[in-house]
């Protein structure tokens, strides 16, 4: 009887030792992580200089309607009458008719400013992030239209599905206090 009790205590001791070791291990890991941790969080964003407008942002986002949308940086825009991001290459007339519009959802609004300038604005709820206009603007124009992750929609997944499928490594994490990478403008 005494022997069995002894065994039990020995086993108990072993278990307690293991438990303590485990706790110490957890503590050490916690300390290590605390040392390596950063206080500020990061969010996903697209580097517009690396983006090749492949269309993955539209289809690979876990959201039904992608969190990536086109933005317009007005400082870069040429305010052209013929906008290669707005008009089809073979547009028959420079107007807002569906037959001349590039955007499949009509998300770019064209407004006359003054001769010969036109203002182009993204109607965000309509934009699906397909990057068709981005391609047009980048190839022919100034590249003032480009894709950005819109943080009012982004779920900030642990691993962004678009990032995994991005062919040019344009998707990256940026500090949450500077969540946009706008071209030529101080990051908002």
């Amino acid at each position, binding site marked *: 009887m005494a022997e069995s009790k002894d065994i039990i205590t020995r086993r108990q001791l072993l*278990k307690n030792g*293991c438990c303590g070791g485990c706790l110490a291990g957890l503590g050490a890991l916690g300390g290590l992580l*605390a040392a390596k*941790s950063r206080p500020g969080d990061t969010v996903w964003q697209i580097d517009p200089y690396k983006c090749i407008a492949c269309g993955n942002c539209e289809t690979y986002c876990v*959201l039904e309607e992608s969190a990536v949308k086109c933005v317009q940086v*007005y*400082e870069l825009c040429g305010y052209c009458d013929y906008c290669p991001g707005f008009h089809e290459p073979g547009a028959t007339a420079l107007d807002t008719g569906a037959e001349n519009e590039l955007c499949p959802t009509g998300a770019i609004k064209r407004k006359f400013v003054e001769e010969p300038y036109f203002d182009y604005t993204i109607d965000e709820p309509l934009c699906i992030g397909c990057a068709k206009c981005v391609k047009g603007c980048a190839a022919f124009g100034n590249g003032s239209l480009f894709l950005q992750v819109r*943080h009012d929609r982004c779920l900030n997944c*642990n691993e962004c599905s678009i990032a995994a499928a991005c062919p040019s490594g344009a998707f990256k994490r940026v500090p949450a206090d500077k*969540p946009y990478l706008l071209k030529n403008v101080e990051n908002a």
Partner: protein
Amino acid sequence: MKRFAHTVIAIAVLLNLCAAASAELLFPPPEFESDYVMPTTTTPHPHQDVYEYVDVAVLFIALSLASYLVLKKRSRRATFVLMILSLIYFGFWRKGCVCPIGAIQNVVLSIFDSTYAVPITVSLFFLLPLAFTLFFGRVFCAAVCPLGAIQDLVLLHPVSVPYWLAAGLRALAYLYLALAVLFAATGSGFLICRYDPFVAFFRFSGNVNILIIGVCFLLVGLFIGRPYCRFFCPYGVILRQVSRLSKWRVTITPDECIQCRLCEDACPFGAIRSPAVEWPAVEYAKAKKRLAFLILLLPVLIVLCGWGGSRLKNVTSRMHSTVRLAERIYLEEAGEVEDITDPSTVFRATGETIESLYERASIIRNKFILGGWLLGGFMGLVIGVKLAAVSVWRKRTDYEADRAGCIACGRCFKYCPREQLRLSKTKQEVC
């Protein structure tokens, strides 16, 4: 020929690229004569920081509450309600991200990649459930994890999985953990997040394939209790081992067991072990020899599996984008594929030499040799220990919850006649 031309483009662009980036010119916008005011680009801010800390607080509260409800209150119903609440908060409200299961990868990556810093909240998400498990058993699985909750909820007609099958299937979870750690450590990607089956439900959207996987898990979950938790969850594997050491844990009844066996039927997860008497004498000698053999086999298995794992470097390293790119470029250079892909076009445009890409990819691939050794060795250890463990005869006098397998759901409480009696007694006392 066409390919050669591409190379020429790439070469030429190389000469340009540094200058092209730096010599960029901010071209002035037109000067408007009308009173047009140039709009500014809107930049809606992410709304998180605070939320993240709220999440950690909620996690802590939920874990404490779960420990109390399971161990002290011993109430299945209250645990169930907490589980639903957790499902609603962590699942549907917070969209299932970040979770401790995925946090494994962040932690691993931050250890192996000096440039990656894990957010404090994520490390807390990883550590808190472990700490609670060390003290109170797997209460996280019982009532806090939204993935467990959604499976628990759909469990309608439990079918018991034979012990042998469960033992074999569980190896999958170890493999999943090992792979996830390997890919996270090498910076290849977050496997667990990529194949998270239920997160699509929480978000009401997601990849069709992932949705199908989720539906399949739930369909299986109608009959087999928590299939993901038991056979796949990589965090569950860690919790299993930690809960073996837990200070307190679920007991079917604090009173004396009457060996009625009802609890065994009640547990849908096969986590209740029946009593066992002395080893049959005829078997004993044989079993002893077998155990000795299996223990000797253990190092052999580790080395063998490790070797096998290291041989897999060509397969496993394909998870890394650089290696995939290098393979693609190699095929294109060798003329084995006709077209070019987006990544290869981009690579050629950057002007990096192919040799340097191959070199980078080789370095990464070589990491997978060591990684493969560790992965294989780990799997060998797991299988070896498992073999030895099922060959050890443990004497048990009562029905008791398996230290590792019990997820502290509290179903057995209701079924135990002794417990019913005890509860009614306490109720009477209260009255």
